[in-house]
């Protein structure tokens, strides 16, 4: 009774859809046991979860507002991931983007709105891009491990903002409470159709990133580099340059997400400004198989899970921790199913490992 994990050569759309469906059903069943332990009716809770995410205009808006930073950050991360550059630093890039945007918002609060917002946007993108450039440079130059460096740089960024919040940028009018002053109205993104304008940016960026990745030379070079560095080099691609530019774009998008969150959602800078989006976006990017349009879908689903999870907490009086276990359980199964889409279990000796195209 020995089993072996074998890489699948190819999987039909139908089969991968089937695996994902089974995963979701399993997730719901397992969670149902957990909900029953809490003495609640699982069907009611699931219905409330959906109702909480989409049940009214207010809730749909909240779900979309949660999805906006996820979409933009996921797009940024996807570009790096396509190159097999594991950018775990979205959180830090968001922070630095928010920081740079806040610098202009706090320093020049009286500039005309369009100018100030444009300045903040550019600052956010540049800061996020530069923050991502550091690990990219080390990787290009000395082949350092980008996963560790990007991860560690998150904490530097978070501590930097904490320092500002408790130190030089602390609001003098807050009676010692450690917060940074609120932005002026000119530094706050306007609403469009009831939601801050970030949703339009997100949709435009999806299209731009899709075209960039699939139709542009640089996008193609990034994909080739992700498949095989040797191939890229053989084809005459400047590897270092590609890594650096790709990460500037990747970090720049994350930085823009930071600017949007600081301006439209927080109306100030604080350590909660990213709220874990940089990490959550890794999951949504992966679920969307790095494809721009699917990132929209994955982000909305994920935002719905967050919004619905928050709703059931108050609706059923479930402790915050229990709602998180529920979200985590659903996630665990869905992500776990990805393994079975890429690999399969076979009885020992009965299957030949498939030869993937890139291996020759």
């Amino acid at each position, binding site marked *: 009774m020995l089993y072996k994990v074998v890489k699948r050569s190819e999987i039909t759309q139908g089969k991968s859809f089937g695996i994902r469906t089974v995963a979701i059903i399993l997730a719901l069943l397992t969670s149902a046991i957990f909900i029953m332990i809490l003495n609640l009716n699982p069907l009611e809770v699931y219905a409330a979860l959906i109702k909480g995410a989409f049940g009214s205009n207010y809730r*749909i808006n*909240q779900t979309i507002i949660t999805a906006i930073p996820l979409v933009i950050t996921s797009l940024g991360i996807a570009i790096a991931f396509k190159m097999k550059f594991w950018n775990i630093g979205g959180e830090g890039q968001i922070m630095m983007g928010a920081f740079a945007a806040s610098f202009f918002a706090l320093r020049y609060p009286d500039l005309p709105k369009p100018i100030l917002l444009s300045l903040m946007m550019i600052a956010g993108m540049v800061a996020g891009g530069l923050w991502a450039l550091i690990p990219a440079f080390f990787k290009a130059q000395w082949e350092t491990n980008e996963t560790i460096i990007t991860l560690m740089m998150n904490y530097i960024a978070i501590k930097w903002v904490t320092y500002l919040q408790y130190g030089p940028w602390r609001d003098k009018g807050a009676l010692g409470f450690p917060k940074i002053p609120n932005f002026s109205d000119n530094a706050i993104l306007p609403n469009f159709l009831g*939601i801050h304008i970030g949703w339009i940016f997100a949709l435009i960026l999806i299209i731009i990133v899709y075209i960039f990745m699939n139709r542009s030379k640089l996008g193609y070079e990034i994909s080739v580099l992700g498949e095989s560095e040797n191939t890229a080099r053989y084809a005459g691609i400047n590897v270092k340059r590609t890594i650096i530019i790709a990460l500037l774009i990747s970090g720049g998008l994350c930085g823009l997400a930071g600017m949007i969150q600081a301006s439209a959602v927080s109306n100030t800078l604080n350590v909660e400004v990213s709220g874990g989006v940089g990490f959550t976006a890794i999951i949504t990017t992966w679920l969307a198989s790095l494809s721009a*349009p699917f990132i929209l879908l994955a982000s909305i689903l994920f935002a719905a899970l967050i919004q619905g999870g928050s709703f059931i*907490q108050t*609706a059923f009086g479930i402790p915050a921790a229990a709602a998180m276990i529920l979200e985590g359980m659903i996630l665990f199964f869905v992500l776990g199913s990805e393994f079975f889409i890429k690999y399969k279990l076979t009885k020992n000796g009965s299957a030949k490992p498939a030869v993937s195209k890139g291996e020759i």
Partner: protein
Amino acid sequence: MKKALSLFFVLLLVMSIIITGCSQPAKEEPKKEEPKQEEKASEQKIKVGFVYVGPIGDGGWTYAHNEGRKYLEEKLGVETIIKESVPESQEAEKVLNDMIDQGANVIFTTSFGFMDYTEKVAKANPDVKFLHCSGYKQLDNMSNYFGRIYEARYLSGIVAGLKTQTDVLGYVAAFEIPEVVRGINAFTLGVRSVNPDAVVKVVWTHTWYDPAKEKEAAKALLDDGADVIAQHQDTPGPQQAAEEKGVWSIGYNTDMKEMAPKAYMTAPIWNWGPYYVQQVKAVMDGTWKSTSVWEGMKDGIVELAPLTDVAPAEAKKAVEKVKADIISGKEKIFVGPIKDQTGAVKVQDGVVMTDEELLSVDWFVEGVEGKIK
């Protein structure tokens, strides 16, 4: 050609999602909003929301508020909803809006950092009543309420001052805001009223709720020579540090006897229930008015928990006497002469600090070792 086609389909998909996902709310907004308001008007049902900064199980601050909520449910039979562990950031604003969306029409926000968000949401929702704990902002539909916990802290300082052998006391504190500074000052004045040589060392944790961090901070103070630990934190973490070290402690928020039976002596505690009942009842009767409440031991909103056997024998008598004076108004605690850390006289002889001064205090009294940034 094929690529162009697929691009077209993707755009189509995106657009369809935009249309279904985003433009729908705008279109239906006026339609859906109306029946909801009718619903509210016809029901006239009171639903009370509580926004907590920590989990109910913190065994301290949030636990005390939740006891008040349970008392409210029991006395008036109103429906209540809660949200635990809400960060003091934009998330609080969202939680408030979520609660209003779920039908809450009276909302208590129970942490200082919720103040600005409560104010913002209160302005946008004039029909909902907000009551914010421990802040200073007030609107027609937003009250603020708090208790003079410093009175009980002064008493607990007497107990601690009598107990200490090293004449060094440790104080684990959350944030450098007036509420916390005032508590440290009152505690120190209490300590030095019975033990003029003692000093109070302060460590800041910059968190309300982080059991491990609070415990570590207490340990650092104990290593620094302190033999009584007091706290302005939401969990019994510091109590446990004292228990493990075999020394003594003063709790906060609730009676923490069970968490540290060998160390715990007493605690300044909260009793929110009666206030919550009184306020919600006023809303039900239609007599509710926005107020700024800052009541003390006289009104029962703050108390000193019963002294345990660990407390020094002479403490009970000393505390009883001062307590009676506080309740009668004879002992005002912040009465000059009071010196600051540099030894300069900050409050002249016989002068009583005003509420305004107390609510914005940003300096430590003599005897405190620590810095306000």
